[in-house]
């Protein structure tokens, strides 16, 4: 039942959150911005995951998006939020399209690992290149919106939320199309898909490129809302791990799940860090294991269960 209402929920929820953000304290707005930005990447991973593909290297595209924003800002002085986002998403999408020619032939763990390998190549290049900021990375100026430099973060928050809404709706629509529905079928039986007349390679290539665009956009928005990029927080394999973690945490059930999952992750990390600064990895890792073992459908499955119990 929830699925049919997804568009409505996204639309109304988005508007409510934008209104809420106006009154919310800054730190909550920040958490929402970080959560929604990252959720875009999760949306892409969700599309892949439904097809049975898990990428352990999407920090590659996330980082590409983020660093594109940094280069646009520092080298070219581009401040407009949409230009930066467009740049980040496009570059990541282009890279994803090219890498996709290799990736579409791989499945399972090989797919996961090849992605890691490629992301580590980018990591190695950036860490070693002084003009790309090496380990330090770059600070990024606050973006302008329609030529206006905003006084607070709120306008950026509105932009991010709207983009998150649009992306969720687009992905939701995509998942209803024929190629979008080719998720479980590909996971179940590729040969049959081929004999039905659809190219599995093309379908995966499309999904992969989509996920790259989304991850690039996520990186770009993240860079702008944080105001900082660096390789260890944007490209290292641990970041890819985090993205997958949030995907599992969210569950593949619905395009809304990534947004909830990302927010939960953001809150979890903030509090883990606050309450046990020495042990936040243990808390995050422990949660991860718990989800894998006891809640394979992620948070979304809880919501569905809750909804069922009620009705």
């Amino acid at each position, binding site marked *: 039942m929830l699925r049919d209402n997804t568009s409505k929920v996204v639309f109304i929820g988005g508007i409510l959150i934008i209104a809420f953000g106006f009154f919310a304290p800054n730190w909550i707005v920040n958490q929402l911005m970080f959560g929604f930005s990252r959720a875009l990447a999760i949306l892409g991973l969700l599309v892949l995951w439904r097809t049975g593909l898990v990428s352990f290297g999407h920090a590659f595209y996330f980082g590409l998006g983020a660093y594109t924003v940094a280069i646009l800002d520092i080298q070219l002085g581009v401040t407009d939020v949409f230009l930066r986002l467009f740049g980040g998403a496009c570059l990541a999408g282009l890279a994803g399209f090219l890498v996709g020619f290799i990736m579409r032939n791989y499945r399972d763990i090989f797919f996961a690992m090849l992605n890691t390998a490629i992301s580590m190549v980018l990591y190695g290049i950036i860490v070693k290149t002084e003009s790309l900021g090496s380990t330090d990375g770059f600070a990024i100026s606050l973006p302008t919106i329609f030529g206006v430099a905003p006084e607070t973060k709120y306008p950026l928050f509105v932009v991010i939320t709207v983009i998150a809404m649009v992306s969720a709706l687009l992905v939701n629509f995509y998942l209803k199309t024929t190629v979008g529905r080719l998720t479980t079928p590909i996971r179940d039986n590729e040969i049959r898909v081929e004999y039905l007349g659809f190219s599995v390679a093309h379908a995966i290539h499309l999904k992969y490129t989509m996920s790259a665009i989304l991850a690039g956009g996520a990186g770009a928005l993240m860079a702008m809302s944080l105001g900082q990029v660096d390789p260890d927080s944007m490209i290292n394999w641990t970041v890819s791990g985090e993205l997958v973690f949030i995907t599992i945490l969210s569950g593949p059930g619905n395009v809304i799940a990534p947004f909830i999952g990302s927010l939960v992750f953001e809150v979890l990390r903030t509090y883990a860090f606050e309450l046990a*600064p020495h042990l936040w990895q243990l808390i995050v890792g422990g949660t991860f294991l718990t989800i894998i073992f006891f809640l394979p459908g992620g948070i979304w499955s809880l919501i569905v269960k809750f909804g069922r119990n009620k009705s």
Partner: protein
Amino acid sequence: MKKRFMTHALGMVAASALVFTGGIAQAKDSITIAVPSFLTGGAAGPFGIPAMNGAKMVADAINKGTLPAPYNTKGFGGASATLIELDEGGGATKQVAEYRNLVEKRNVDAIVGYISSGNCQALAPIAEELKQFTIFATCGTPRIFEEAPRKYVFRTMGHATSDNVAAAMYVKEKFPDMKGYTGINQNYAWGQDSWRDFDLTLKQIMPNSKASEKTQFPKIFAGQYGSEISAMSLDKADLIHTSFWGGDLEAFIFQGAARGLFKKKIGVMTVGGTAAYRLGKKLPDGLVLGARGPYGILVKDRKSVLNQWFVNTYKNIYGIYPSGPAYQYGQAILAAKIAYDKAGSDASNEQLADALRGITFESFSTTIEMKLGGGHQAATENGYGITKYDSDEGENVVTDVKFYPASCVLPPDGIDSVDWINGGMKGAKC
């Protein structure tokens, strides 16, 4: 499963409630100071933990009013301070997010700390954006106050330029015959700046010596330097400069010493002071050792009341002599006290900044003049010595200690370090 999740959620709600009430309860008789430092990772042991210890010890003494005069008044402008300990690890981006949380969520009054130059560089603009009174304690890159004027950000120790200019001057004085030099530095702002300043200064003051073409820049926390040591052993240079710190430095000393590197070459370690007490007999003799200013082993025997208080109290509590980071964090906390004493415990960020800007104060081991970067960047003397194991005492000592005054090793206010060195260090009073 559901239960599990609910308890989790409840835990978070409870936790946030705690934080909120903590915020409300805060009044003029107490303040919170966030102290970020490395609590995990390779830098924790040699740097982060001593630093945190120094901060805790000094804050504790201030709260009790047990610091020697003239700082024997109780509290920070009368208020007692609670320290929030934070991990500085995880990269600059994560620190930016945490910093925002500190200011906007946890409503801390002041932020005092940071070891990594990468973090400081990323956080300075954020601090300015959030208008948050912040004192950087240890990080070294000169870029922070050179790339933009700051209003809320301070640093209570000299920057890396003074470390490396002083190192070059010390080399000139003690090893006038040095013909060539090479370096191994970490591949980020700190290492790059350090090497550049050292190299440029030597080009000015020892024009006959030659820099090696192959200087090493391994990644931070690499841990193994076998090939690098071989390469430097084969290099014709007779001196090796390094700004390594923490675990990297200790690993490098071990591996180099085992292979006789420091018998063949002069080792100059700008941050070597932290290793002196920790490595004991394993520290080779004859290293040129700095402590990024007048701290740690270089000033252990300074007789001032403040210094003796610091050394003895630290030794009593932690069982080891205080190294540089302990001093640096201690004096940053002290600076916070001075600012609060002057502006009052309920002072705004602006008032606190005004109170600290441009002042001169006596710290534990030296005099600090906040005279660079528009009164935001400290200028202190800087010095070096040569290591020697004292087998009678069973500990390392430094000999031939020589200090250079601030005006000798730091550029005048408003002039960038690199320009100043390249211009022949005009106005240096040595």
